[in-house]
């Protein structure tokens, strides 16, 4: 069965859709048509593949973690999206969307960002292709990911603070959508995950499918088969969908890992926000709850609609881990493998570590979606509080 087909009408089972202000409907339709035509165009695909190889550094390696495997009693493989240019998987999606924006005649990219990785990737692609770039970022995230704010500015982007609500990713998305409503004629909204209105969840998945396609080939070469378990952290869910897409039609167990403070599937019920129907943390009145996670990139109360569908049909399961477990995993991978992970994929390792007995002896593929450089300051504040760093990992008063 083909589980990840093209979603008809933007639906993944009961989820997805296009719940946007009327103004944006024609913009979404234009984008859908443009993506369909580009994706079927070998010249476009060739140009994207060239950029992914020569600029972003694909294919990313598969690394077998011998010391960690021994420590955990299983066989751990990492898909090294942390080694991509700009430091995370986000660049796969952004290069595709930026090329598409140029193809549509747009001159400006608008983006939201949580940890800043998607913002940095978007600012990078804008610099590369000569586009203007505005990135919205929650004010609180600008404090805890200050390094990425400066990176975006160095790259020539304007970073605008989202000052409402929790001042994190959810609020940055609101601001980016408000911008797009007013500027859609000249601007492309470069959404950073498999969420939002159709065609984004599908388009962003297709642009990240390369992760799973490469990983499947790499695993078959190394293991002679698919891994037993494929795991990834889930904010909106793009790196997870990317790697799942290579294995969804096989037998591997698929496990998404959410932060306990932003567990849309773990703690949510179906709702509609930011353009699609999906699981959502909300109160009994339908007000969206504010997520609270150590990781700015996962600090989001919703999740992409295809994950809700995969959960509903039982093809993937979703676990959640606490901030403390994540910090322990962050240190564990750094010491045992010489790889400082981003806090986001440290969530996936935290689950593997917790579930090690159940996973004993099995081959586990973990999508290492990003590197930890951006988190070093924040972790210094937490792990060495008297070091003089002002890195803070709790909401500022």
């Amino acid at each position, binding site marked *: 069965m083909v589980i990840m087909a093209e979603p008809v009408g933007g639906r993944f089972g009961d989820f997805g859709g296009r719940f946007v202000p*009327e103004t944006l409907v024609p913009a979404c339709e234009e984008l859908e048509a443009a993506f369909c035509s580009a994706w079927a165009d070998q010249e476009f695909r060739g140009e994207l593949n060239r950029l992914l190889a020569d600029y972003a550094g694909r294919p990313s390696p598969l690394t077998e973690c011998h010391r960690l495997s021994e420590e955990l009693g299983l066989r751990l493989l990492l898909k090294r999206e942390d080694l991509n240019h700009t430091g995370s998987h986000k660049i796969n999606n952004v290069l595709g969307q930026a090329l598409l924006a140029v193809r549509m005649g747009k001159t400006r990219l608008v983006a939201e960002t949580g940890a800043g990785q998607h913002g940095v990737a978007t600012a990078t692609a804008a610099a590369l292709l000569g586009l203007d770039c505005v990135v919205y970022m929650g004010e609180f995230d600008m404090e805890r990911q200050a390094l990425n704010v400066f990176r975006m500015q160095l790259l020539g982007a304007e970073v605008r603070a989202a000052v409402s609500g929790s001042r994190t990713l959810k609020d940055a998305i609101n601001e980016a959508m*408000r911008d797009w409503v007013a500027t859609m004629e000249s601007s492309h909204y470069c959404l950073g995950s498999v969420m939002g209105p159709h065609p984004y969840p599908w388009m962003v998945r297709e642009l990240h499918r390369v992760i799973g396609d490469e990983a499947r080939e790499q695993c078959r070469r190394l293991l002679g088969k698919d891994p037993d378990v494929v795991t990834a952290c889930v904010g909106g869910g793009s790196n997870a969908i990317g790697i799942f897409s290579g294995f969804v039609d096989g037998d591997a167990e698929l496990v998404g890992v959410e932060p306990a403070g932003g567990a849309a599937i773990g703690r949510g019920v179906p709702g509609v926000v930011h353009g699609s129907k999906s699981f959502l943390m909300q109160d009994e009145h339908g007000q969206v709850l504010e997520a609270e996670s150590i990781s700015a990139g996962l600090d989001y109360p919703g999740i992409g609609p295809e994950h809700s569908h995969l959960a509903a049909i039982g093809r993937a399961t979703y676990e959640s881990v606490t901030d403390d477990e994540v910090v322990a995993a962050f240190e564990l991978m750094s010491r045992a493998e010489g790889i400082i992970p981003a806090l986001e994929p440290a969530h996936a390792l935290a689950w593997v570590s917790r579930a090690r007995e159940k996973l004993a002896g099995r081959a586990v593929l973990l999508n290492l979606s990003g590197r930890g450089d951006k988190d070093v300051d924040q972790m210094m504040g937490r792990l060495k509080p008297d070091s003089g760093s002002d890195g803070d990992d709790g909401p500022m008063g």
Partner: protein
Amino acid sequence: MSAEVGPLEAALRARRSRGGKALVPYLTGGLGDWQGALAAAADAGADAVEVGIPFSDPVIDGPVIQQANDRALAAGATPLGVLDSVGRLDIGVPLAVMTYYNIAFRFGLERFASVLADQGVAAAILPDLPLEEAGPWTEAADAAGVETVLLATPTASDERLGRICARTRGFVYGVGLLGVTGVRDELAASAVVMAERLKQMTDLPVLVGVGVGTPEQAEEVCRVADGAVVGSAVVRRMLDDGGPMAVGELVGRFRRALD
């Protein structure tokens, strides 16, 4: 098309057939003395009033209505609380509720529609529920006798505007510009164009809102449109703690500009 004309459409048609222009202020439910402000707006000559049920993520609203939402929520406003109070008011003009789709979805669409009907609310406006997604809601609303007002925007093709005009009830809400709610210095040229396009297409009352912030701008757009919706300017008065009197005073100024 349903043969029955609902109370909102009837009120707006009545204003038009008297040769007048309709005025529909918006205000945020749960914010300060909003019930007093509703009554004051009606007394000052509103043909209908829109009441916002605050939502945590008002994506089509600018800073003024965002702030109003936040304050109302912080003061404990809930959908049922707002609707209960509305049911106990009798301001003499039809009421429309404006909120985001998740509020209705979480409530349960049929239940939300029937609560609106029970509380005497004539119409609903859900700005993040476009035509293609509106089916389940309009079915519930039609069954309960609640008029669903759809928005029409400058980005829509004529073909799309035609479909919107065919499905909307009460009136067709022409959005005056590309952008979020808020007061601008001048009326956007797109507001008049929007009104012209819609007037050629439908006999329903055509009201323009979003970016209509002063009595002069309302007068300007109503040279073509059948009426205007005024949101942020009214809510600004509420945020400034002007109370019902200030709201009534402002609505009165819009009324005189349109008469």
